[in-house]
């Protein structure tokens, strides 16, 4: 139900890339997300990354689960096929798509509810299978589309503030991805285009399972790492009218800070997020120190961002399966059907 049709006039300033495509060629439908939603910033970063990488737009395949985040593939790369599958099961669908055609570039887009709650198993197993993909979680620490329930990624530090809610330990998807053998692991913030675009580019260029956890504030329900407020917040901030069904338009939160530094981000609900960008001399090829690094900063309440780990020469699922170079969906009858002679031999062996 997109009622606004998008102006398709090319802006004279839009520069074509090496393939002759402008940034507009990488765009999708008009977003129906809330104004200021972090997810839209991620879509913009994906568009920018694909444009800068000179990718033929139709050679990407975009797959997602269900959620506000999972809707976003409709809002970028309109010339790519997209698949908004079922809640929490994008990883398996992507795995199958990748098995069928090794030549496309696979982008998996998911939310924290989609990947850390219902989809945790599939998240983990797609990573340990080394599926060649870029797996982005648009992590707002909340179920946006179903209106503000806690997801599995909210911060453990906030566990006892309200007693009954959010008492569970939080799941750190970056930590898990590292443990599960992802060969590219990064974290960023939706508003940090300067960091996010290069990370997405690197992830797409990487062969194997690339995982990027992107913190992406939900302007409606305001749950995210560091917050326990959710609906309460909406209640308080709408005190003037005290109505739950009114949603105030908000501005996107952006940041821009240097490697090695900490940026303190004040979110819509007033809570604080401390982002620590990895220093320029950080060695992302040492897994153990990546894990230690993460744990140490986490103890200090800091969320480390940047490229945390990469195994440059990773093998992928097709290497493991030793599949032919021709995509399986393009093999012809002769390559697929052994024919009647072979069948005769089989019949003979069964007598």
């Amino acid at each position, binding site marked *: 139900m997109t009622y606004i049709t998008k102006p398709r006039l090319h802006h004279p300033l839009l520069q074509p890339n090496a393939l002759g495509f402008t940034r507009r060629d990488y765009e999708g439908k008009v977003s129906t997300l809330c104004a200021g939603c972090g997810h839209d910033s991620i879509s913009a970063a994906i568009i920018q990354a694909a444009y800068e990488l000179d990718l033929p737009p139709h050679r990407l395949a975009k797959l997602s689960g269900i959620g506000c985040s999972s809707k976003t*593939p409709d809002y970028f790369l309109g010339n790519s096929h997209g698949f908004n599958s079922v809640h929490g099961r994008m990883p398996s669908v992507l795995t199958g798509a990748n098995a069928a055609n090794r030549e*496309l570039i696979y982008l998996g887009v998911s939310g924290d509810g989609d990947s850390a709650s219902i989809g945790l198993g599939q998240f983990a197993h797609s990573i340990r299978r080394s599926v060649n993909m870029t797996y982005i979680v648009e992590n707002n620490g909340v179920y946006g589309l179903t209106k503000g329930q806690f997801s599995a990624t909210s911060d453990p530090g906030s566990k006892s503030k309200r007693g009954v809610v959010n008492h569970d330990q939080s799941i750190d998807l970056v930590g898990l991805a590292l443990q599960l053998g992802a060969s590219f692991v990064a974290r960023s913030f939706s508003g940090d285009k300067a960091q996010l675009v290069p990370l997405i580019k690197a992830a797409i260029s990487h062969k194997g399972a690339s995982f990027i956890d992107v913190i992406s504030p939900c302007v409606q329900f305001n749950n995210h790492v560091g917050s326990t407020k959710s609906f309460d917040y909406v209640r308080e901030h709408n005190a003037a009218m005290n109505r739950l069904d009114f949603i105030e338009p908000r501005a996107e939160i952006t940041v821009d800070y240097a490697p090695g530094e900490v940026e303190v981000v004040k979110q819509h609900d007033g809570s604080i997020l401390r982002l620590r960008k990895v220093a320029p001399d950080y060695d992302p090829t040492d897994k153990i120190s990546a894990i230690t690094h993460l744990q140490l900063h986490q103890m200090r309440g800091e969320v480390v961002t940047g490229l945390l780990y990469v195994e440059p020469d990773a093998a992928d699922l097709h290497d493991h399966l030793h599949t032919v170079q021709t995509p399986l969906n393009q093999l012809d009858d002769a390559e697929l*059907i*052994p024919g009647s002679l072979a069948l005769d031999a089989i019949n003979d062996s069964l007598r």
Partner: protein
Amino acid sequence: MSLAAVNDFVVKFANVNGSGSASANGMFAKSILRMGVPVAARNIFPSNIQGLPTWYEVRVSEAGYLGRRGGGVELMVAMNPQTWDQDVASIEPGGYLFYDSSKPLPPAKFRNDIEVLGLPLTAICNAAYTDPRQRQLFKNIIYVGALAHLIGIEESVLETLVREEFGSKVALIDSNLKALAMGRDAAAENLAPIGLRMRRADKVGDRIYVEGNSAAALGAVYGGATVCAWYPITPSTSLAEAFTAHCQKLRTDPKTGEARYAVIQGEDEIASIGIVVGAGWNGARAFTCTSGPGVSLMQEFVGLSYFAEIPAVIFDVQRGGPSTGMPTRTQQSDVLLAAYASHGDTKHPLLFPEDPAECFDFGALAFDLADRLQTTVFVMLDLDIGMNEWLCRPFRWDDSRKLDRGKVMTYDDLETGKVFGRYLDVDGDGIAYRTLPGVHPERGAYFTRGTSRDPYARYSEEGPVYVANMQRLLKKFETAKTLIPAPVARPAKRRTPHGAVYFGSTTPAMHEALDLLEAQGVHVDGLRVRGFPFNDEVMAFIEAHETVFVVEQNRDAQLRTLIMVEGGVDPAKLVPVLGYDGSPITARFITDEISRRMQGSSVTPTPQAAE
């Protein structure tokens, strides 16, 4: 009086699983085939790895009846002390009990009305071998040798089988032949000839002897399946394993040694069907194989496949339900769940193979149907057909046959400006064209989803748009009726108002039952249904009869339900005959049920279990 029969009796082996008996028993069955006499052998095994009872029932039938017959067995090979009592009890009066007489047993352990054939197998083994492993293993071979002597299996037949099995391993050949000879000699010395005899015949012809799971997997290879995603579960596991093995042989690039297929063991059934759906979306032929619990877990994805119209194939090798039920027993009890899988209004095509030959055919056909209909197609096997070796006609393939990829718009189609509406019914058959990801730089891309959308795949929550799409899906299901294999009729010798509908692994027992009824003067037209939705012939058959027995292996008469619901048939004319105790339905059970209902004035449906 002792039973006498030639080429027509049942031998049952009672063993302990993990003791190596399966191979020996299998050799026994195969030797009968090699004598030119049809055999139907069925394994009855526990859900356990080692130490629990297992049986192997070999039906020898020159007449070619390959279903279970029912009743007691003519010859029991009782090798398991744990089940001795029930094994002895299951011998037909006048039948034979073969056992290991090394340890004396009190007379109360036997019956007066059977003939007892004791050989001191353990003692023989202990004398011949020192290694405990050899003692155990060769005991099985020794009893095969003894039985061969008793019923008259030719020595050369067994020798050939041993040579075929061990190929170049001369030591193994020799030791096995020696063990066979030991058994033969012991029997010759100690036992008198018995009334059950094998006589060479030529009733096997060019038939093959193969498991349905392996056949279905081979069908998948010929059907062009390239992606298999699965999760282990009895009795479907061997289907995926066979597919892997077939592909290794038949689908490896001869030059590079690379695989023209991908087999992925999912972390569970949800992942498996998800992988299949992803691969199907992307234009590869993909399948999973599972059993009841897996089908339950796959429901949500099957609904997605239905509504987003993505080809997928599921081999459901049915076992005893509900829940974990009887994992190593057979049933046809997932029919209803598969037909209407998932929430909302959904219907899915099903195929019902009768034997491994048809498992092969339908295994291949399913992929053409899935691509043509852009939906999930279920191939409904069961444990009986899937995990037992069945004698069936050889596999056939017409080399001129092409894979039917269904309606897929190519680059050229798009380039020449053909109208593309992903859910647009251009041909009036309810089937729209699809495009494959990456096909064209500017045209053909669309956003697939399980939510309602218009014919051009644009999101829509509007009622009329939704309804039009749901009606188109019904039209597509009508089209499916014309693609599902037609039923196979088995008319009675005389005109009759009585019909019987049956499907799948029930078929051989059913055909025998129809013969038995015929012999009693009861005439029933048979119709073997081969798939769902039912084509017009099925409905015409039901229309043409006053009473139709619906014979199936489940409690709730699930196929009967489908016939009523989809065909608008009055339930009063559909009489359920239900055998669902987990062992394959028998000809005698079916015969008794049908003749009971015919004798009684009314044909009230009173579900009852086999045996």
